[in-house]
């Protein structure tokens, strides 16, 4: 305690601070991609327009899946903090599965668009759309890999209560990716898009 009186650091974990700085910086990355999309959403050349092609009910379901994966993520952390390793693993796996389900939905959406004539090179709109959602998808996939690594590490008995912070940090990343999708879902899908 006497040591602390002199201490001037934030007293916060280095790792968590690093993750938050990273997430702050990611805002600029996704901001750039989203702005690019917004500028180009009405420039669909001769290809399909966003308003014609988006399948709102389908995307709503996959958005809901991703949203709920945030719940399971936070439950995984909370289980680990209690020392409940069984439930921790269960929720980690559920989160990864929900993430995978979301990615599966994205693959389905992309292939459907492709069949309907919206390829990556069809128009500035299509390039911007696939790039934005693709970047997000890659972020989700990296999250799934991290979750599975945590799961395996827990199976081998290496993920103890003391390392709950590692799960918390992966969780921060996961929730951030979810929050980005909350933004994308509203601004890109729900706000009425131009039609041809």
């Amino acid at each position, binding site marked *: 305690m006497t040591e602390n009186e*002199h201490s001037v650091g934030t007293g916060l974990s280095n*790792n968590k601070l690093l*993750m938050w*700085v990273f997430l702050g910086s990611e805002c*600029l990355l996704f901001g750039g991609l989203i702005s690019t999309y917004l500028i*180009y959403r009405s420039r669909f050349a001769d290809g399909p327009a966003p308003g014609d092609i988006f399948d709102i009910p389908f995307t709503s379901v996959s958005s809901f899946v991703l949203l709920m994966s945030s719940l399971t993520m936070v439950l995984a952390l909370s289980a680990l903090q209690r020392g409940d390793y069984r439930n921790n693993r269960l929720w980690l796996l559920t989160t990864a599965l929900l993430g995978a389900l979301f990615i599966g939905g994205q693959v389905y959406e992309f292939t459907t668009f492709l069949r309907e004539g919206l390829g990556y*090179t069809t128009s500035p709109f299509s390039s911007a759309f696939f790039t934005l959602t693709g970047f997000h998808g890659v972020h989700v996939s990296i999250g799934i890999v991290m979750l599975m690594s945590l799961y395996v590490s827990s199976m081998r008995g290496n993920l103890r209560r003391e390392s709950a912070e590692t799960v918390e940090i992966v969780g921060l*990343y996961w929730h951030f990716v979810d929050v980005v999708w909350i933004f994308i879902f509203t601004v890109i899908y729900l706000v009425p898009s131009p039609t041809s």
Partner: protein
Amino acid sequence: MTQTLEPEVGEMSKDQKHQPLGVYTRPKGGNGWRDWVTTVDHKKIGILYGAAALFFFLIGGIEALLIRLQLATPDGTVLGADMYNQMFTMHGVTMVFLVIMPLAAAFANYLLPLQIGARDVAFPRLNALSFWIFLAGGLFLNTAWIFGDAPDGGWFGYAPNTGIVFSPGNGMDFYAIGLQITGIASLISAMNLIVTVLNMRAPGMTLFKMPVFTWMILVVQFLLAFAVPVITVALFLLMFDRNFGSHFFNPEMGADPLLWQHLFWIFGHPEVYILILPSFGIISEVIPTFSRKPIFGYPFMVFSGIAIGFMGWGVWAHHMFVSGIGPISVAAFSLSTMFIAVPTGVKILNWMATMWGGKILFNTPMLFAAGVVSMFTIGGLSGVTHSVAPADTQQTDTYYIVAHFHYVIFGGALLGIFAGFYFWWPKVFGYLLGEKLGKLNFWLMIIGFNLTFGPMHILGLQGMSRRIHSYSPGFGFEFWNLVETVGSFIIGIGVLLFLINIYTSAKKAKGQPPVGPDPWDARSLEWITPNPTPVHNFDEVPVVEELDEFWHRKYGKDENGKVIRVASAEEVCQDGSATDVHLPSPSYWPLVLALGFPFIGYGLIYNLWFCVPGGIMILMSIYAWAFEPPDDPEEGHGEEQHENTLDGETEEVSVD
């Protein structure tokens, strides 16, 4: 991601006394290259950054001389038009991304932990990783010369000019991917240093007792953390356009060519301050030391730096006054650009007020620092002339602009970095650089610099266009162009003298004991450690009570309030003899991980299969990194020749 976040504790060892050049020897790891490639010591990484950046500096300098040779006479034939395009593009890219930024990183890495009283940065392995990724990216970019064509679209790479239609060669691919790689390095090091400053300060060192250099580096890291993602977006879009046929910059499909310009300059203008603020920080250390006065208006210095950091985000479109952004945008950005001159002016006034009435010693570092204040003021003033949009319309794409940004980046950033070299050389290597050669180096550089870039103001206003490989006789351009070429070679001789100075000073110092503590009667905490800095930095982490803590330990006031010396440097400085300090263990994985990136880069350009080994290397390294034991209990530490003692101050390195 988390795999890279494991806490890092460990230990390393060292006996560095009386070794002027090799500051570091790690008997366990051997004396040689293996020690350097696995190091996680912030000081060694700083030296590596410096050495790599100086290497690229020579390349960029040779490119500059070739440009000047081509332009020495009308209708020059030294370089063809195509080669000229590659030359000026690579000169710009190299000097900005591979010289000034890493040189700033060199100083930041070496000095920042010392200035805040820390034993290392928050994430030593990530620190090594940023260096190796930077080096991998820089070398990757320069291999474009070997593979046929270098980038030729300017350092700003305006799309669609840099798209596949107008730049069909591979040059711009190297640009897009190479800068992507160095961007990752900058981002990692920015996050690392931010955490370091926030969490690793010595007891008592509140934010407003930090040296101005540390402050400026902190501001720069925030700028990097937020600006790098923006150019990352731009470079990705360009890469997708070129390699996968997307239409981000294809006007035929309805794309907007201004998109690139916006994204690039949203990054590009903060980047300008990323280049200059470290140098501002360096001379804010040098000027008080050699004026024998504390820095004038410390809080103003800090806040103006922060203000520049903020305002730097609101002026980007002044690079686009002639791009057709509309009168309202032009007016708004014109105003904001004029305002940003205010905090910069505050800094210049504060430096002058620091010198005012001081007992100024014109040692080489001080000469360079004074050079920054004067030359940067010229560059700043010509910058204000750009903010006036009608005038800028005349100046755009002429040599007037070239004059301006060389006055701020050469006259401001680079001269400041040279001030830093001369100032901190004894701290890093244990010997002083020769004053005689140093002064000659300064005068040649400053004369050559003004001969080279001063006349560009005139040529620009006379209408000579930049980025054009030749000019016809009869426009009145001949005389000044010749003068500029002569000037550029004078700069070249100046830089050569710097290298000779290093060589002769090192030779003279060989076999001599290292320079005593505190050769400059300096003010900040890094000088409490002996020269060169021992591997563990501080024998005992100092408790800080004052701004300029080191100076306050040497000086006090007598009963009349007069400043008197109360302690000699020898009494104040530590002797570097501590042996019981835990330091982070070296690691192979930063290097291996970084080597994966060029593979992916070549893969994207030539054959996607090359990406596979690159990806495997990266993935494997991340897992190896995560599972590598953070601490090696077998490894000794402290001074190798002495008894192995364990434990002691582990907490000092592993925060929390």
